[in-house]
């Protein structure tokens, strides 16, 4: 599952990427490159590889962050999302509902200018989600 979050009216889109299968970062990378159908060593390959690292290596995993550091400070994951991440109520509701089925919840703040609006969300869904398994 991937959802978009826009912190403020003038802010850029952010995303929360939630893989459901408990895959390692290396397997997520291999799956992403395979799904993208890019030639190894090419410009497109590097672009997808960088995108993978931006999401799954450099982004904060909210679920792991809460479990490791904030479980004592906030009484629930929802409170953590609301008060620390300052997500809107609708986003908090969606993420708390999905937390048990997700292996991680990566808060991705893209520097890629083409990842905006509906196109950005669709782009990430096409690249990351398995069309045969909703929420993959």
């Amino acid at each position, binding site marked *: 599952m991937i959802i978009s979050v826009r912190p403020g009216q003038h802010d850029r889109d952010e995303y929360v990427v939630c893989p459901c299968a408990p895959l390692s970062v290396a397997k997520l990378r291999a799956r992403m490159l395979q799904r993208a*159908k*890019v030639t190894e060593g*090419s*410009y*497109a390959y590097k*672009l997808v590889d960088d995108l993978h690292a931006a999401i799954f290596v450099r982004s904060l995993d909210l679920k792991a962050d809460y479990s490791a550091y904030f479980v004592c400070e906030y009484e629930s994951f929802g409170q953590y999302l609301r008060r620390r991440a300052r997500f809107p109520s609708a986003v908090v509701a969606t993420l708390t509902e999905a937390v048990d089925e997700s292996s991680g919840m990566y808060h991705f703040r893209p520097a890629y200018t*083409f990842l*905006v609006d509906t*196109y950005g969300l669709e782009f990430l869904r096409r*690249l990351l989600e398995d069309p045969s398994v909703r929420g993959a």
Partner: protein
Amino acid sequence: MKIRAGFVTNSSSTSFLIISRDELEEGAFLELMGVAPDSPIADLFRELFSDVVGKSQRVDLSRVDSRVSPETWFKTDRLSATMIARLRKAAGQGLTAYFGSLSSDDTPVQTFFCTDALEVENERMYFNCLECAW
């Protein structure tokens, strides 16, 4: 006093040069960039290709006057030494060249490629998008 909550940035642009054996063709461009036509991200490169085609001057290098600078062929003073050398070599081989610029003011896709740097080449095509053209 007013405080802007978003980010402020200057616009930018980048020059590009394509040298090709054939007419510019989308399939060849996707192959050059390393993405399959049925890739879920192919549309990103299709839009780049469309922008490149729409914003470039085409010159048949087999018909240029090789005694003058390649900048004359494109009526520009923006060619770097690398581009000029590449064009002179291509002119000797009778290839076709396309020169133009992308602007961050136009589309999010162009903005991205304006802030990236790439130089890719295969047997059919050479694409240089390294030169800045403020």
